[in-house]
Structure formats: structure tokens, C-alpha cells
């Protein structure tokens, strides 16, 4: 299921010269599952292969795809996951709404800057101080949640509405009001429309901007992870942190950058999901941490680090979108959908682990 980025020449034959199922499952597992799902989907609806349905599938997983690329860097370097993703998304969304009054570009830059700072803090604490990544990022998630709720009194903010009351207490808004005393006098109507339109901007044939951004992030992520010197170092650190250190790699910097990438990707996702909801709030982004990890694992990336790539992650993301789409087309209820999705997850991970074991690799 996973394909090592060093393996530029794909070898499917085993030692005996035969192409084994385990090798195929190891390298292409998620895409085999997608192939199976395509066959099943054909029975779900005659419109399954229509362009509109495929745009719907891909559009539905665009935000997840952005998050998954970022989190995959954290997992690839052997740090299991980034649980601060939901609140990075929420905070970036809130910040983008606040900065939206200065225009779309500052809105994006503000959100990304916030994500980068949070990622930097995560990276320093986890990379330098060696604090457990799950515990720290979970703690960061709580801190950010409290910060947003405190600043906005548990309410949500609308791009076209200046919330005068919230500018008096809390942290973020009074700070902004101090930096720019005229903050309440900016006409928001047109800028809010532009911000809300982000999620509803389409290119040729109705391709959503979100989808384009996801693809771009995936391509950039692929090159960084699989084709760059940083990616190689990330793989070494993910495979064996101590070996990485002894090889002269500055492992802490590598880990720090991985968390920054994760948070920056979550920031992009946060801006778009806020535009979809037309509202900035602390609950926006909930659940995307676990969904991203699910997509990454389905895509064949090992939780213990150093194995897998972005192509697999993209496969995992598409697979999740396909499963939901097909089950909806079959009219399967929400509860049953969860059970089926869980069962598919178990099967894929089991097949992956088994093939890795038989190929002489670890089963992490």
C-alpha cells in the first residue's frame, strides 16, 4: 500500500520471481480498494460516473485533503498525529474573518501566519523538549479552544457583522482594536461577500477553487516529502530518530518544520471551511484530526513513521469520499455508514499490516 519514496523503480516480483499479492497490496492497496469501490459504485447509480458526481466527491474531500497532507508530514516523521488541527482550523477561520476587513490576501496571510506560529510552538515543544506529540497537541487544542471561546464569548462571528461587544473583552479582538482603532468603521458588506465566495468560486466546468487548492497542496506536499532533501531527512528521522541525529541531521528542526507544515495546511483548510460555513466559530474543524489520520492510514502511511507518501494519502482521502458517496447513493443510513466505514478501515489496515509482515517489514 505504501510506496517508499526511494523506490523509483517499481519492482513487483518477489524473490521467487513471481508477483506476489503482498507486494501488490503493499504498493497499491488503497488504489485496489478504490478500483473495487468504482465497480460497486457503478451499481449504486447510473449517474455514478457522471462528471457532476465526481466533482461532488472530490469537492467534499477538498478540506480533508488539505488537512491530511499536513498531518502526513507529522506522521511521516514518526510523531503519530497532530491533535491541534481542529482548533488551528477554527482559529485560522476566525482570524481570516477578522482580517477579511483588510482584503482577501491579508485574510489568508493572517490565517496562515497564525497557523505557522502555532506549528512553530508545537514543533519547538515536541522537537526540542521531546514532549509526547499527542499529549502536547491535544493540550494545545484545548488552549486554543479556550482562547477562541473566551475571546468571542462562545458565540460565532459572521464576516458581514462587526461584533462590537466582543471587541471589549477577551484577547484577540481588543488587541486588534488597539492596533487599528478604526476597525469598526470599515464597510464589511462587499468584503464579506468576497470572503464567502471563496468556497463558491469555480473554474472551467465548475471545478471548485477548494479542489484546485487541495491538488496544489498535494503536489507541493509530494515534492517536499518525496523529492526534496528535507523529505529524505524526514524519512530518516521518521524511520529512526536516533539514527537521524547520529547521521548529522538536525532532527529537532526537521520535526519542527513538520509541525509547521501541518498547521499551515490546517490554516488553509480553516479559511475554506469558514467560508463554506459563512461563520467563524470554535467548533469549526471538529473531527478533522481523526479523519485526516484515517485517510493517511488508509493511504498506507505507517504510524511509526518513515513509510508511505502523499500519493497514498491522496488515495486515502479519495477513498473516504467514495465510501460516503456510494453509501449515500445506496441509501444506507448514517449509523450503518459508520459501521461499514469502520469495517473497511479495519480490512484495509489488516491487509496492509499483513502484507508488510510477509514482506519482512515491520507491522506498525
Amino acid at each position, binding site marked *: 500500500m505504501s510506496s517508499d519514496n526511494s523506490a523509483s523503480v517499481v519492482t513487483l516480483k518477489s524473490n521467487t520471481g513471481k508477483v506476489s499479492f503482498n507486494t501488490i497490496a503493499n504498493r497499491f492497496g488503497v488504489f485496489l480498494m478504490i478500483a473495487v469501490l468504482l465497480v460497486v459504485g457503478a451499481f*449504486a*447509480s447510473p*449517474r*455514478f460516473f*457522471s462528471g*457532476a*458526481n465526481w*466533482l*461532488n466527491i472530490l*469537492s*467534499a474531500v477538498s*478540506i480533508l485533503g488539505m488537512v491530511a497532507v499536513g498531518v502526513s508530514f507529522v506522521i511521516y516523521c514518526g510523531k503519530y498525529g497532530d491533535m491541534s488541527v481542529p482548533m488551528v482550523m477554527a482559529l485560522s477561520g476566525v482570524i481570516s474573518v477578522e482580517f477579511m476587513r483588510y482584503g482577501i490576501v491579508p485574510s489568508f496571510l493572517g490565517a496562515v501566519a497564525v497557523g505557522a506560529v502555532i506549528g512553530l510552538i508545537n514543533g519547538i*515543544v515536541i522537537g526540542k*523538549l*521531546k*514532549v509526547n506529540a499527542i499529549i*502536547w497537541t491535544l*493540550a494545545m487544542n484545548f*488552549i486554543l479552544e*479556550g*482562547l477562541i*471561546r*473566551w*475571546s468571542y*464569548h*462562545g*458565540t*460565532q462571528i*459572521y464576516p458581514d*457583522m462587526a461584533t462590537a*461587544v*466582543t471587541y*471589549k*473583552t*477577551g*484577547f484577540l479582538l*481588543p488587541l486588534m482594536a488597539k492596533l487599528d482603532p478604526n476597525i469598526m468603521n470599515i464597510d464589511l458588506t462587499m468584503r464579506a461577500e468576497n470572503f464567502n465566495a471563496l*468556497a*463558491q468560486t*469555480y473554474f472551467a466546468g*465548475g471545478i*471548485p477553487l477548494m479542489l484546485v487548492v487541495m491538488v496544489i497542496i498535494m503536489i507541493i506536499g509530494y515534492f517536499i516529502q518525496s523529492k526534496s532533501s528535507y523529505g529524505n531527512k524526514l524519512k530518516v528521522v521518521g524511520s529512526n530518530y536516533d539514527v537521524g541525529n547520529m547521521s548529522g541531521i538536525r532532527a529537532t528542526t526537521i520535526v519542527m518544520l513538520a509541525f509547521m507544515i501541518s498547521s499551515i495546511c490546517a490554516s488553509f483548510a480553516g479559511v475554506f*471551511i469558514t467560508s*463554506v*460555513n*459563512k*461563520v467563524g*466559530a*470554535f*467548533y469549526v474543524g471538529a*473531527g478533522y484530526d481523526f479523519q485526516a489520520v484515517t485517510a493517511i492510514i488508509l493511504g498506507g502511511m505507517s504510524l511509526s513513521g518513515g513509510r508511505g507518501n502523499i500519493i497514498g494519502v491522496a488515495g486515502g482521502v479519495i477513498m473516504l*469520499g467514495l465510501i*460516503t*458517496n456510494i453509501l*449515500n*447513493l445506496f*441509501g444506507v*443510513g*448514517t*449509523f450503518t455508514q459508520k459501521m461499514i466505514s469502520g469495517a473497511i478501515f479495519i480490512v484495509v489496515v489488516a491487509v496492509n499490516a499483513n502484507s508488510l509482515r510477509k514482506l519482512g517489514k515491520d507491522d506498525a
Partner: protein
Amino acid sequence: MKKSMRTVFAILLCLVMVFAFAACSNGGNSGGSSAPAPAPAPAEEDADIPAASADTEDNLAKSKAIDISGLKGSDGQLLLIYGNARPVPERPADPKSLPDDDPLKYWDIEYAGRTTQKADPIVSPADGIIGKKIIMIGQSEHPYWGAVFNGATIAANAYGIELTTWNPNGDLNQQNQLIDKAIQEKPDMIMLATLDAEASVQQFKKIYDADIPSVAFNMFPSDEAMRYVTAITGPDDFGQFRLLAKTVADKVGGKAGVAYVTHLPGGSPYFARAYGPISTYAQDYPDMKTLDLQSPGFEAPKTKQVVADWITKFGDQLNVIILSDDSAQSEGAAQAVKEAGRDDIIMVAAGNSKIGMDLVKSGGLYAITYQSAEADGAIPIKVAADYFNGEKVENAYYLPQAIITKDNVEQYEPAAW
């Protein structure tokens, strides 16, 4: 040792960050286990706020003199509004055995508390509402609940009540712990929006056994739980959705394929907002056919995918979508319909949030129900006032029913949340 030092350092760093945020602020609420104090809403009429330490002797007289009937919420609507309770049909012998589309199947939820034989009621001290300590336990941190607590606070301030609001973050275990904590604090009354109809029996019995009167608000508990409750207040969800269902059916000439985006399964809104219309259609509009029900939660992207999948699956058969939430769910559905070029699909939803009313104005939603979140919080306070003032308290108080469309949406602006 070195590792321990790192951990300690990390914890300290964490604390420093928290305190740094606190120090940088100009104030704010230090939440604790209580819900964040809602921002004070401008009440248009100056309520005479009495001192909580009024003499016991004339407390009742002073309490009765307080009139908050003209008090308004931050949305400019009257806070103390009750609708007429609908007549109660006879309860079937076994409602659960009836088919899903039979209106009487949901009798125990729809008419909970209306005819319940109460346990021995906790007698009111009839010494006046002023200075009473009330603990209000809500459900979650959803902005709707912020507005509910805001309305409750406005009314409580007007009455001179010491009100504490708590939030269990949607967790039933946490709600049960908050109930225990509330009982230990021995307030004069506990108000509870139960998270689970089945669990509500034990929740309200526990409060009753502690000799503390209670009001069930917002979410209807089971009929059995109502034995221990002084009164229930909240939206008449079934009534609202039956009305909404008829509004849509009349709009489409009584013939359409209908799909439902439900509330969280298990609670009374799930049944009211899906099976309320389904059973109404089965009885009065047989050509309104149910195509599907899905529960994607309150997320715009997930609802968008569900609705887009419905459009793919049902094509022109899909004519109406009934949503349980006029905020994120409706926004996601509206985007899916727009992307598919299916502006002919008529969508309706529950609630009157800003997003919902904006969608009504833009044509994304045909209609929404009127449900004042602030009134939802203020009415139980009024019931408490009647109780402690020794006045008659009814079994149930419902928020009034109304349908908001493009024609009347401006009457309901601005939104409370």
C-alpha cells in the same frame, strides 16, 4: 531526570501561555465550570433591578410587583412569549408499536408532561423570587445555547435572581455530574435541558429526591420524568414542524419527493423534525413521499455532500429538503443545490439564526421556523418567578409557533445568534 525536567518545563510553558493571554486581555470571563457569562443584551425597557438582599417580609410583595412582560432580548423580540398549548389526543395503549408514520407513535415525546400524574409536588415557599439561587444546566457550547443563557440572564437580572449557568459540552456523563454538583450546592431551583430522554427520569428524580424543585426546559424529557418536574418550557418542536410541513406541502401542491437532514438521533428534535413532517404527510398529504433520511450532523461540508449525493441519486424526484438546522446544515445544502443548478428544490429548516434568515432573504431557504433562543432561556425564569411568588404554574409553556418566509423575515431581525 532530564526528561522530567522537560515535562515540567513544557507544563510551565503551557501555563505561561494561558496567563499571558489572560494578562493581555482587558477583562473577560474566567469561565471555570460555568458557561461563559453572556454579553449583556440591551433590554429596551429599563427593568427595575431589585436588591437581592430584600427583607424577607416584604420580599414577596416586591417580587410580585416586578413586571417583565415588556422585557426584550437582544433580537428586539419580546422575551416572555408563550404560545397556546395544542390539545392533547388520547394516548394509544402502546404508541411504540404503531408504524413510524403514525402521528400517535410519538405521543410520549410530543405530549410529554401534558397529562402526567405528578409525584407529590414540592410545595413553593411562596416567599418571593427576589434573591433566589437558581442553577441552569444546558446542553452544549453551541451558539444557540449562548443565546439561551443570554435570555435567561436578562430575565434573571430583572427579577434579582442569582443565576448560575453550566454547560456539559454535550456529554451526558458530564451533565449527570453537574446535576450532582448542583444538588450539593443546594440552590432554590434547578433548571435542566436533559441530553437524553431516557436518562431524564433518573436525572429529575434525583433532583426531586433532594427536595429541590426543577424546571425542564428546551428539550423534552420522557413522560415518566415529568412526574418529578414542576413544569416544562421550550419550543413545541412537533407543532412547529407539522406547521412547516404543511407550509411546504401547500407550496408544492401536495405532491413531492422529500428528503430529510435530521437532528442528532435520540433526542426529541430528531423525531419532531423528521417524523413530525413524515407523519403529517402520511395523514394529510399522501403524495408527499419520503425519499431518504440522513444524519450528517451540524457541518456544512458533510451536509453538502449528502445533498449533492441525493441530487445524483434521485434527480428530478427530489423536490423538497427538510433540514433540522438553519445554520451550517442549511448553508451546506444551499451550496449543493446551487452547484447542481437545482434552484427548483424547496428547502425549509428549523430555527431563525442569522445564517438562516440570510438564506431566506436570498432564496436559499423557502421558510424557517421561529424559535427565539433568548425566550427559550427566559421563559423558565418566568416560571420560577411564578412558582416562588406562589402563583399557579401550568404543566407546560411553549414558545409560540410561527413560520418565517421572505415576506416577513424583516420582522424577526436582527437574529439573537
